[in-house]
């Protein structure tokens, strides 16, 4: 188990090191998310009273679009000259390849969100957050599910010529529970209006995250056909 975790960390660290060389994926992903904040700000002319209503959905839309760009790009890194096969030759269960990449995507999205949340809060004239820990929890659980499913499908479509088009088409419909759940929990965190539905959304997000982390990890070897 220790060797397996070391391999997962080595794979995530390799992606982080590649990213540190140019920051290309991070810059592309973060700037797209921030641009969307500016677009939404001018497109909707939102008064401060309505900001809290629109903030969660707008934030999740930006995370979804920007994150998809980032994950598609990151998955292609291993497709260049088939170099991802080097890791497939290592004496470690190939599910580690999935989890390593997923961990990197989770970290990448966390950095993007850290930059995007204050910018979106300003763009939507948010006065504050009633339950910031609930906002963080909603973002974390939603991002985890998004990263897990996104990693799987980005890996599966990375070799396709039209991967940039194909990935959102296959990914977005499957992410509906994450977007609804993530937005509902963030909304509850912003307004402080926690209801029974908030608990249901949190449970749904946990189930989604566990399911879409465990199933791809179990099936990754046969799904990827390296």
């Amino acid at each position, binding site marked *: 188990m220790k060797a397996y975790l070391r391999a997962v960390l080595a794979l995530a660290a*390799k992606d982080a090191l*590649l990213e540190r060389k*140019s920051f290309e994926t991070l810059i592309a992903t973060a700037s797209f998310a921030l641009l969307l904040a500016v677009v939404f700000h001018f497109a909707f002319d939102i008064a401060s009273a309505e900001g809290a209503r629109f903030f969660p959905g707008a934030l999740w839309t930006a995370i979804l679009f920007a994150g998809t760009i980032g994950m598609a790009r990151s998955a292609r890194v291993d497709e260049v000259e088939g*170099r991802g*096969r080097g890791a497939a*030759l290592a*004496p470690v269960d190939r599910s580690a390849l999935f989890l390593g990449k997923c961990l990197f995507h989770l970290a990448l999205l966390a950095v993007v969100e850290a930059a995007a949340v204050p910018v979106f809060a300003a763009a939507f004239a948010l006065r504050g957050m009633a339950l910031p820990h609930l906002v963080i929890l909603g973002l974390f659980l939603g991002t985890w599910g998004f990263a897990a499913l996104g990693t799987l499908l980005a890996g599966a479509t990375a070799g396709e010529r039209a991967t940039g088009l194909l990935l959102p088409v296959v990914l977005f419909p499957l992410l509906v529970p994450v977007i609804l759940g993530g937005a509902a929990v963030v909304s509850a965190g912003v307004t402080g209006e926690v209801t029974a539905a908030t608990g249901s959304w949190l449970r749904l997000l946990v189930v989604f995250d566990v399911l879409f982390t465990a199933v791809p990890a179990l099936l990754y070897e046969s799904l990827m056909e*390296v």
Partner: protein
Amino acid sequence: MSAGALLEALGLSVQAGGRTLVHPTHLALRPGQWKALVGPNGAGKTTLLKALATLVPYTGTVRYRGRDVREKPLAYRRALGVVLHEPLLYGELTALENLVFYARLYGLAAPRAAAREKLAAVGLEAYAHEPVSRFSRGMIQRLALARALLHRPELLLLDEPLSGIDARGEGLILNLFREAKERGIAALWVTHRWRRAWDVVDEVVEMQRGTLLGAVPTAGRRPEEWTPSFAEEARG
């Protein structure tokens, strides 16, 4: 089953796109034995090598130390060092960073020291901090070999490891191969330049149209005394 075989392919076959790329093949390697696999382009040599490396789906059985590799894939991959046509290296990273990454992935105790040792073995220690994208084809091949030898494998699967390498690099790599053989490492070496491989390998195996044709022992013979049938066909 061949007694004492390190690696055995029993009825190994590869199909892709409705075509049979490798017909049911039997092949065995003893510990420390080196075989060269020769044949024209499209003969199926690389596909056979990739199937043995479990990188492409195959039918039939591959056994390592008498056990189906599907039963214990991790033990098999730990014993395996593979050099493909693609170097499996990240051009954006330095030579050292690439090897340290693989050393960590293989769970080596001192990744940085192991990486430096192998860089020195292939004569690239002076380029440790250079990005691989700046390397020549020959330097990349040497680094790919360092990657394959990093975890001290028992079995090497080599696809044209001398391609693009100058005379000095070739001498260095052939010496590395001789040392590896002396240490008991076995190898299957796909090559077009079988005359260069002759002194290192124990047998030359010919492959054509996805089928192994036969093996020629190299002991007591000179490379000039043997001509593969595809070369004869081409001549005449």
